Each structure stands twice: as structure tokens, then as C-alpha cells.
């Protein structure tokens, strides 16, 4: 027995020793320089595939879904790409980043002295990728700007139903994201080159992470480290300039056009604008191009669809909706219109629908929302507005709305809007006496958003039967 117990003790001691060694080595490996580098690269991988652009209502755009530029055949325009699910693309900005990261993981284990270069390459590629995302898709950025305004419409629509809705109480997800922007900032006009930064999410984080990695893994004194980081930033800026070259050409010609316009040289301005369009043909569908061309036409007292578009937009801003609708509608009805025209008409009709709702003309509001949704089906705000109006005017249609709309709510990235929509459905079921369905909807709303101090009051009180 003593021999056996000694053997057992020895065995336990050896097992314990082995376990200790294994745990210590595992910890040492994870916390070693190589381990930390690999962890950092994996973190960069998460950032590289994460959301890079955040609209006010629709779901986030991930880097893996955004191409470097519009291809010759396939256009990355909001009317085609706003809806989810969005495919992962081989021509996306994330692919080269992931390649660098995967190669970097191998290199970090094999040749750790090259790690700084791996991070440097990642830094350069991420700078150019972020630049491409921000500046190579002007149509997409205009779509985001439209969603900010449409989110305002939804706030009004929800407030008509209940003042305690999240959409009404909480500012939208752009304004609260890191509290970067106040309402004034997000709604104030800004140069189109700066506008994309409002919607940028994790792309710049990747740049910062790669820069830190480059500087931290470069062996040497601080000037050498910073010089190394600076060189890779320079390479990144050159790459970015190459990738976004057409956009800078556009901005140059556009600035020329504006200078000529301000000097009353309107023909020269039109010529500069044509050069801008040549540099980036997809601008032809953007509101910016239509507004500038329309303004030039208006100054020359020409009557064409561009001038109508410009005037309609100004009347919309001034709140004269009927005039705005009259100016733009015939162009769209006649030819179908381009995306910019359709978006403007839908926005005008959306505002008209909001006004109907304020005056409790729910029937007219429902029709108007429906029209807007038909004209710009890629914009979720309009069909949500229509559905909420239907629920307000006729709660017995709750089941119909649930079947038709609830599956489409996955298009919506703003959890306040989604949660409130479920609450509205709950209200409608409650009113018609379907308490089980109502409770189900309130629970769904609370699952979407409910936090201490940010209580989903309406859904909570609804579920409690208050």
C-alpha cells in the first residue's frame, strides 16, 4: 500500500507538473510577442470584415460587401444593393486586407522580424480601402443622407401613435453612435468629400490598429519607428490617391464648374461639369449632379428636367410640397426617371404623407406612403410609414401587416425603428383583443431593445397590460 500510494503521489505529482507546464506554456505562448501579434492580426481581421458604413435606417454595410469601385458592368448603386442579404464580393475592399492578414499570421510565426512590414502593408492597404469606401460610391453616400431625413419622417409618424416610442425618445443611431454628432451636425450641409465620414464606422479603427502595430513592432528608436509608420502611411496615401483618382478629378472639375458659375460663366461651368461626368460616369444618377446641372439650367432660364429637379428640390426644402411634387412628378411618370428623380419624388410624397398623418387623414396618408414606397422601393422608411399608418387607421389589419411587413423588417438596422414597429403591431393586436399575439409582439419589441435606464417603456407597459 505505501508503495502504491507513493507511486500514486508520484503520478499525481508528474501529472500536476505536466499540467502546470502546459498551462504555463500556453499562457506564455498566448502572451508572447508572436502570440500578441497574431491576436492583433485576428483583431484586424474582425475589423476588416466588420461594418464600415452605417446608414440611419438600413443595415450596416460590411467591408466584405463594398467593392473598390463600380465595375464597368455591375453598378454598386443603392437601388440595387440596399436590400439585405447582400452578397460577399470578391472585388470587395476586405479581400486584399484579409489576404494580408492571413499572410501576416503565417509570417508572424515564421519570420517575426518581418512583422512590422506586415502591419505596414496592412496599414497602406487599409488606408486605400477606407478611401475607396468613402469616396468611390457617391450614390451610396447620398442614399445615406436621404435616410437621415427619412428617419426624421419616421420619428413624426411614430410620435403620432405614442410619445414614449424609442424612435421618438432616442436620437437615431447615427447621432448616438459614440455621440460623435449632434443633430445640428448631422443635418447641416457639408462638402460631399467630408460627408462620408458621418457614416464611417470601423474602417478608420483598422487604420489606427495597423499604425499602432507598425510602430510597436518596428525595432529601433522612436524616430525610426515613426519614420517607418510615416513611410507606410505615405504609401497608403499614394495607393488611396490611385484608387480614388477619378473622384479627385471629379472634384477638381466640379470646383472649376462652381467657380465659373459664381463668375456667371455658365457655359464654361457646364463644360467643366461634363468633364466631371466623364471622369466618373456613375455621377449621372446622383442628386448632386442633377442639382448642379439644374441650377445652371435655371440660371439660364432653360426649361428641362434638370431645372425642374432643381426647383422641386428647393421647394421641398422651403416646405412647398405641392409645387415640388408638380414639378418633379411628370418627369418620373413619363419616363420612369433616374434614381435621383425617384428619390426626390418619394421624399416629397413622404413629407406629404407625414402631413396627412398629422391631420389624422390616415387613408390619404396610407395611399401617399404607398406611392412613395412604389417609387423608391429600396428605401425602407416609406413602406414602414405605410405599415404604421395602416395599423393606426385599421388595427384589424394587424395580421395582414405582420405577414407582409415583419419579414421585411430585417432590412432595418435601426433597432429603435424595428422595436417600435413590433410595439405598434402589439398595440393593434391589443386593440382588437388578440392578447396572445399582442404579448408576443411586445416581447419581440423588448428583445430588440430593452435596457436599464434605456427602458423600452411602450413595449414594457404593453406587456404588463398597463
Amino acid at each position, binding site marked *: 500500500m505505501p508503495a502504491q500510494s507513493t507511486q500514486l503521489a508520484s503520478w499525481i505529482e508528474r501529472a500536476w507538473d505536466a499540467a502546470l507546464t502546459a498551462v504555463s506554456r500556453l*499562457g506564455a505562448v498566448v502572451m508572447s510577442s508572436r502570440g500578441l501579434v497574431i491576436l492583433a492580426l485576428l483583431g484586424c481581421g474582425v475589423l476588416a470584415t466588420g461594418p464600415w458604413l452605417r446608414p440611419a435606417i438600413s443595415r450596416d454595410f460590411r467591408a466584405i460587401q463594398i467593392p473598390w469601385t463600380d465595375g464597368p458592368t455591375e453598378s454598386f448603386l443603392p437601388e440595387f444593393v440596399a436590400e439585405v442579404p447582400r452578397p460577399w464580393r470578391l472585388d470587395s475592399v476586405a479581400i486584399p486586407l484579409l489576404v494580408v492578414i492571413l499572410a501576416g499570421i503565417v509570417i508572424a510565426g515564421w519570420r517575426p522580424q518581418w512583422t512590422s512590414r506586415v502591419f505596414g502593408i496592412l496599414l497602406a492597404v487599409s488606408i486605400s480601402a477606407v478611401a475607396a469606401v468613402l469616396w468611390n460610391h457617391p450614390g451610396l453616400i447620398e442614399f445615406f443622407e436621404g435616410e437621415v431625413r427619412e428617419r426624421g419622417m419616421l420619428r413624426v409618424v411614430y410620435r403620432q401613435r405614442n410619445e414614449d416610442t424609442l424612435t421618438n425618445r432616442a436620437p437615431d*443611431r447615427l447621432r448616438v453612435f*459614440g455621440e460623435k454628432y449632434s443633430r445640428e451636425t448631422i443635418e447641416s450641409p457639408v462638402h460631399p468629400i467630408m460627408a462620408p465620414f458621418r457614416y464611417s464606422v470601423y474602417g478608420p479603427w483598422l487604420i489606427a490598429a495597423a499604425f499602432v502595430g507598425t510602430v*510597436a513592432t518596428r525595432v529601433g528608436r522612436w*524616430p525610426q519607428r515613426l519614420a517607418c509608420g510615416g513611410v507606410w502611411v505615405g504609401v497608403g496615401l499614394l495607393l488611396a490617391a490611385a484608387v480614388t483618382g477619378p473622384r479627385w478629378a471629379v472634384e477638381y472639375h466640379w*470646383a472649376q464648374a462652381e467657380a465659373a458659375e*459664381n463668375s456667371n460663366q455658365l457655359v464654361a461651368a457646364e463644360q467643366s461639369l461634363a468633364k466631371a461626368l466623364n471622369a466618373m460616369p456613375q455621377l449621372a444618377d446622383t442628386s448632386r449632379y442633377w442639382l448642379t446641372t439644374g441650377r445652371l439650367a435655371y440660371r439660364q432660364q432653360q426649361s428641362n428636367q434638370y431645372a425642374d429637379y432643381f426647383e422641386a428640390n*428647393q421647394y421641398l426644402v422651403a416646405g412647398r410640397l405641392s409645387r415640388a411634387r408638380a414639378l418633379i412628378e411628370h418627369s418620373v411618370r413619363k419616363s420612369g426617371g433616374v434614381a435621383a428623380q425617384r428619390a426626390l419624388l418619394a421624399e416629397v410624397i413622404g413629407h406629404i404623407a407625414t402631413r396627412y398623418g398629422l391631420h389624422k387623414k390616415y387613408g390619404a396618408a396610407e395611399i401617399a406612403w404607398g406611392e412613395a414606397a412604389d417609387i423608391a422601393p429600396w428605401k425602407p422608411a416609406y413602406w414602414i410609414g405605410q405599415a404604421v399608418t395602416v395599423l393606426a387607421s385599421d388595427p384589424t389589419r394587424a395580421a395582414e401587416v405582420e405577414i407582409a411587413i415583419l419579414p421585411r423588417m430585417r432590412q432595418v438596422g435601426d433597432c429603435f425603428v424595428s422595436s417600435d414597429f413590433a410595439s405598434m403591431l402589439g398595440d393593434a393586436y391589443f386593440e382588437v383583443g388578440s392578447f396572445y399575439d399582442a404579448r408576443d409582439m411586445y416581447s419581440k419589441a423588448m428583445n430588440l431593445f430593452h435596457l*436599464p435606464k434605456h427602458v423600452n417603456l411602450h413595449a414594457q407597459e404593453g406587456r*404588463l397590460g398597463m
Partner: protein
Amino acid sequence: MNIRTLIRTPLQWVLLLACAVALGDFSFRVWNASPLAEYMVTRTVRPMTLAENSKSEKPKKHLYLRRTWYMTEVPVQAWLEVLGHDRLEVFVNGRSIGRSPMVSQSRIAAVMNDITPLLKVGRNSIAIHAPQLHLHRPPRVAVSGACEFADGSVTALGDAADWRAAAVYDRRGQYWFETDFSDEHWEQAEMADPENWRAQVNLPPGAITVPRRSQWILPADDLNGAAAFARSFDLPSSPRDGWLRVLSTGPYRVSVNGQLMADDHDDLAVKNPYRSVEQTYDISPLLKAGSNTISIFSATIGERPRIRADLEATTHNGVMVYVPTDHHWVSATGSIDDWQNSDLSTNAWRACEPGIGYLGAVPRSIERELVPINPPLGFWGARWAKYLCWIGLWGVLAAAGCAFTTRVLEHTNAEQRQVSDQLAYAALVPSTVLAFAGGIMTWDLAWTAHDVYQPLWLLGLVILVVAQWLLLVLIGTWKADGLATLLRWDSTQYHRWQLVGIGLCWVVVLGLAFWLRARDIVAQPIHHDEVTAYAFTLGVLDHGFPGGQVDPEIPFGWCATNELTYYFNALCTPFFDDPRLVVRVPSLLFSMASLVLIAYVGWRWFNGYVGFVAAVLFALSPQIIGMATFGRYLSQVQFFTLLTMYLTFEAVRGTGPLRIGMMWAAAVSFIAMYLSWEGTGMFGMGLALAVLFHRRRHLRWVFACPQFYAAVTVVALVVVAQNAHRVMQQTQRLWYGEGISSLTIKPMWRYPFFQYDYYLVNSAWTRDAMLPMLALAVACALTIAHRWRYHLRFSLICFLANAMFMAAFLPVRTNRYAYHLTEIFILITAAVMVAGSEKILQIVRSDLVLPAHRWYLRTVTVAATAIGIVLSCGWFVRTSEMTRFANASFDVRQLHCPDWEGPTRYLMNHLHDDDIVISIFPHSQDYMFAVHGMGDSMPRKADYWLESRLILQATLGDSQDLPLDRRSGAVMLYNLDQVKQLFAENKRIWYCTMRTSQSKINDSAVSKYFRENMDVVFEDFGTALMLRDANHRSAPIQLEEETAGWLASEFYLK
């Protein structure tokens, strides 16, 4: 640039670059006005205040002022300027014209506006509200303004004899800010002693106050309704500021000196010629010395365009130039293409035709807009180029100066050649730091760019550098032994004086810290959370564990959070009777203990200077002073957090076996920290990460230590036991709703309001976290290769991991949750400051340096560190305009406890037996009743708790199915119907409320009902007492109130 030289002597280049940027930026701003409109209003005023009834009575916390007067005609121009503290809300004829931000101590708020369109024939009114937000600073207001009439007569608006004052948000049918409100029962406003006040406004004051002396002008001809108007004028010297007002019948563009600054893109097609909007521009950055040209292009389809404009420019010498539109202006008709840069002497430009009269735009109907200028990219490009040129110029000058000084030093003292090339660069440090400080100061409401960026100050900065170079040369030249002997003291004597000096410094710091904390310990009233803390403290005395029963309807409950805090409070009960002292003295003592601990840790981990700088920052921090007099767990948890971090590092220090004693001490400290506030559990994760990283190559010693497992087990058992206790207490009975007590961790990055740096910014020791964040970034860089890297890494991992974990997983964000990290942040910042100073002092490591040069460098580094402390301590500079890094920390002597004392006294004096009392904080109200001996045998209690939004959980009573307040047992009023029923069944109802926080737990319908059916009878800081008595209003009056009520809701019971 020689890269090898750069690598060998990076310090010189860093100093040179920093100096070039700081002085270049300063110089650029001296001669190039900022595009941001910031102006200072300076006046000697006799501010208005409330008449004090008796010396014993506390000064009122709210000042309401009204002035009413009659006018038989409307003025052609009227403006109003209101200065005061600590915040201003200004109404003219019932409409809000401005609301200032809260200003810190010794700052003055200002509201300034053109009020012409708001005035009318008949009775007019101005109403102002100023609340007190800081200790010992009762609200005061000074008003100036004028109404100028067509006949040239002027009515002044600021005469104190015309103003009446009150201390409550009064309403007699009309709200107090409405024109028809009867203020006859208000007192005459009292005038205080004269004071010099300076306040910042965001528009050029002259644009509001200077009368419109311009005329409408029309072009000489009409061609397609378009014309350009222009005028040249001279400025005798460089401009300081300038403004332009433009009124036009059509859309227009404005160009100043060929730079387009306003275009017509926004209203080209929809400009309403019948709506007169005068747009005001701050054109300061566009003006230049000498000849200036202003051009305005306007187009009005179908008629001749016409404009009316006024321009005023002021030079640095104080010369003012006023340019109105009149016959001196010239015009060119049609869409000419060079209207911005044209030669005005050509035939294309002809004299304008001045119009007579108002031409349809009467002054009273003119609206005014302040519009930011929008120059083209070329303007900004030129500005940047100029900026870079200034930086380059100063870089060259500083490099040349340093090179010259070095050459002279080498010539005078050859022995010192190796180090003399670095000495000259040290002379750049004070001016660089001061120029940087000047830039920071412009973010403070106390100074504008005009105050800071003056040629005289720039000259001072330059002289400071040159004087130091001369001093260095002088010292180097003067080889007389006298100076050396003078500065080379006898070492014994030197050390004796050094010890005395160090001792004195510590006595001053400790004494100052204690005085700053102790002087206001009872200045603030008891907070409702302190009421709960005191109740739990009594529970310790009664039951040995914090807990108690608040109402017979609610069962006895044990405290399930901050358990350890109440034992320290209980230790104070034998010494103090005042509940405030019972709960606050332990906080104060823990704060002082933390001060000693941070100094010790700074000394042990870094050096004595770090300990001292950390102690000074800790002693002066307004946030820490505020929390030290707040009777909750915060100071205690802060102490134990730092202690835990220190002991843990000491336990794992080195590469060999763990230090067992330290490890067990760390475990005990962790338990104390956790039981002080269980939210610090996340600190444990950061701590574990820091230990793993620190010991990453020697982990076996950690895992092979049996006592390590024992200590971890003990800690884990305490955590599990506390959590089990909490869950059991919270599930003892049914709770309605969800509140902070039901908090669980969630992946917050999936939520819209995720803010990764929230707890980093909020762990700063002042409200302005820009400098602390800068220090944090430098600290991260120091972790790479600095000799303090091990301690810095450990501190930073603990700090950053905890802050990031909280941001990533805590669904609740509150400033105080980061308070336990503040002292770690201070320690890190102190290390950064001292490391920076040491870098400069490394120059004197060489034995070849003269003692006098050694003393010079020490003086430079001490001065730079002192400026850093002054800038970042939160007392002297408040960068309140820099909102990106603003947090919710306490300001200097900021009021932060709602004051129920005054409302309760008023209530006691007027309460009838059958009156109903509703409260927003019933437990706090019950405490106040008990303190003031309300009730005969049983203390009076609040009857109802108003919470129509289910934010805080309610519970059910034992004997009745009514939702109750868990903290007091008061019956919950949860909807408007209940409130209406209560009002129908009872005659006199009191409501103890808070004017802004009320809306957090009540919906607008309930708030509106209270606002319309009750009157405010007493107000104090953050609190108000409302009464429904015989004040029923007829239906017509209620209808009239509807409109004003919406405006009132912005400010009261929102």
C-alpha cells in the same frame, strides 16, 4: 535633414518642431482672424439680485426678473444684452430669445440678441431666469439694451429701477415670462456692488447694437434683373474683426476681396421678396490692411434688384471703419462675369441710385440671421499655406537662434561642447508651453482669440526665448567661481534644506487637500442616495448588517450592494450626530488616504516627483473634491482599487516566486473593493490580464503556487456569495418593471449608443478630458521602451481593460462608474509629465554641465510641469467649448445635491392635516419630515409616489394590491387617471418635485396636468414645491395657457 542626426538627437528636433508649431500657430492667429465668431463683452455693472429679507435666511437659488413697459410706436431698432450667472434664460414678450450654457465659477454667461421684430405697440415685457449652480454664488444678472425710435429717441432697457424680481417660477393665470402676467407682487430688484464682468458671445456685438444707417441702393440700369454692387474702402492697419449685414430683395452672392463668402444656392428659386431677412456675417478672416473691396451680386427676375448693407471693421489699433450702402457704391448691370475682382473705376461700373424710405421692408419686420461664411477651397488652401509658412518661419528662426547660441556657448566654454548644443533648445520649452497654453485658453469662455492672440503676447514669447539664450551665454561667459560656488552649496546644508523643502511641500499639499475637502463638507444638503446610505448605516448599528424595513407593507430587506461602506459609516456615528457627517466623513478620510497612497505608489513605482505631481493633481481635482464630500461608496472603492493594483503588482513583481504576503494582502484588498462596489468585478479582469502579461515568460511561478489557488478561491467565494445574496434579496418579492438593479452584462457594441471611450473620458479628474487623453496616448508610447514601462504597462492594462470592458458590456453609463479609475489615470498622467521633464533634464546628466546651467534647466522643467498642472487641474482653465472631450465630472464647487431643506420647511409651515403629499423621492421626503420632527407620534410620510413611466421598479404591498415605492412604501401613481381622481377627491395637494428630472419618470401628459393645475410655491437647487389649492382656473384662462404652456414645458416639468 540628416536622418542620423535626427536619430541621435531626437529631443532637439522634437523641441524645435514643437516650438515651430506652437509659435507659428500663435503668430498666424495674431494676424489672421479666426472664422469662428467669438467676442468678449466687457462691462462694469451693478448686477441685479433679490432683496434679502433677513441675514439669517439662505440666499435664494433662483432669480426671476421682469420688466414691462408700454410703447406707443415700435422702435426701428432694439437690442438686448443680458449678462449673469450661472445660466440665463431670456424671454421677450413671451418668446424665448436665448439660453446660455452653464458657466463655471468666476465665468459670466451672456445672451445677446436683436429684439426688434418681437416688440409691439402697447405692453411689452422682458423676462429673465438665472439659477444658482455653484456654491456661495447667488444668481445675479445685469441687463443693458436700447430701443431706438424713428425720431432718434432712445429708451434704455437696463435701468434696475424698472425691474422686478422673484424667487419662484410664478404663475397667476399667466406664466411669469408672459407679457400679461401681473408682477405687481414681485419685489423691486436690488442692485449689488459694482463688478467688472466679461462674457463671451458668439456674434459680433456691433452687428446687433450699431444702428442701421445704410440706404437701399438700386443699380443705375436694369438688365435681366441682375446687377452687381461694389464698394472699396481702406483699413489703415491690420484688421482685428469685422461684420457685414445684408438685406436684399433677391437671392445674392457676396464676395470680399475677391473671395466668395456667401452664395445663393439655397434659395435661388424660392427667395421670398416679401420676407425681409437680414443676414449677418462675421467677415474678419477675409479683411486685410489697406484697400478692401466688397461686391454683392443679386438677381431679381422681373425688377431691378436692390440691396441694403452695413459693414464695420475694426483694426488692431482700435480704428473703426463703417461702410453703409449709399451713393458711394457702384453697380454693374447684367450677369457680368468678373463681378468679384473687377476694376471699379471702369465704365461698366456706375454710381448706384439710393432709394428713399424703407422700400417695403420696415425695420420691425426685418428678421435677423447669423450666417457662417462659406469661402471657396482656394481661400482655405491659401490660409493653410500661410499657416505652414508661419510654422516654417519660426522653425528656421528657432533653429538659427539655437545654432547661434550653441556656437557662442561652445566658443565661451569648450569643455561643455558635448552638451551645449542641447542647452540652447531647452530655451524653447517655456515659450512653446505658454503658446500651447494660450491655444487651450481660447476654448475657455473666459477668453477669446482676441484676448490671447495679441502682438504683445507674441513679442513676450519671443523675448522669453531670446532672454534665455542670453542668460545661457551670460552664464557660460561668466566663469567666475563666485557663481559656481554660490550654486554649489555645501552638500550637508543642501540636503538639510532639501528635506525641509520637501517636507514643507508635502505639508502644504496635504493641508490644502484636507482644507478643500473639509470646508464644504456640509455645504451641500443631503442627497437622496445619502438618505439611503444613512438608513443602511443605522441598520448596521441595529442588526449588525445593513438593512431595514421602510414600511409595514414591505418586508424587511438586507442591503445587497456596497455592504462594506456602511460599516465605516457606522464607525462615525459615535462622533457625529449630523447624518451628513456620518456618511461623508468616511468618504473624506478615504479620499485623504488615497492621496497618501497615490503619492506612495508614485514614489515607489516611478520616483518622488511622480508621487508629488500625482498628489497635487489628486489634491486639486474638482471631481475628487466633490466626490470626497459625497457620502457614498466612491472614495472608498477608489482607495481599495489603487491598493489592489499596487499590492497585486508587488505580489508578482520580478521573475521568481510570488510574494505570498503581498498576494494575500491583494486578495483582501480586492474583497474590500468588491464589497464596496461590486461593479469593480470588471477591474479583476484587467488585473488578471495585467498579471498574465507581466509574468508572461514566468507564469510557472504563478500557477505552481498553491497559495495562489487558495487566494483566488477565497476571492471567488466572496464574489459568488455576494452575488447570491443580491439575487436572493432582489427576488424576495415581485418587482414591476426593469431598473438599474436588474442590470446584466450585454454586448453593447451591438447597440446604437455604444461609445468605446466613454469610461476613458469620464475617468478624467476634470470636466475637460482633452489633456488627460493626450497624456494617455503618450503613456501608451512610453510603454514600448521607457524605463518605467513595466509599471506603466501594468497600470495601463488595468485601467484600459477595465474602461473598455465596462464600455463593451455595461448597459448603463454613468460618470461615477469610472471614478475608481480616476486615481490610476492621475498616476499615469503624472508619470508622463515627469518623464517629459526628465527627458529635458537628461541634458544635465553630463558632468561637464555648469551648475548654473543645471539650475537653469531644472527651473525650465519645473516651470513647464507647473504650467501643465495649472492647465490640467480644472481650476484655472475650463475648456468648456471643447465638447468632444467633455464629461460629467464635478466642476469647482458645483452644486450637485438637490436641496429639499427649503421646500420641506415651507411645507411644514403650511401643511394642513388633511393635505396630500406627493413626492418624486418619497424616501428622501420621509427623511426630511423625520429630521424636522414632522408628525406627532409617528413621523409624517409622503402619501404618494408619482411615476407614470415605469423606469424604477415598483413592488406590491403585503396587504393590498397597490404598486408601492420600494424605498419608502409610498403608493405609486402610475397614470393620469389616478392623478385626476386624486385631484378630484382632495382639496389641497402638495407635490415635492424636481423641475427637470421629473420628466425622466413621468410622461408629458402627466407633467402637463401638474403644470396646469398646480403653482410653484417654493424653489431651491434642483427642487420645487408645488401646491394645488383654491387656484382653479376657468376654461378660457386654461385655453390661453395652452400656448404658453408648451413653451413653459421646455423649461419646467418637461
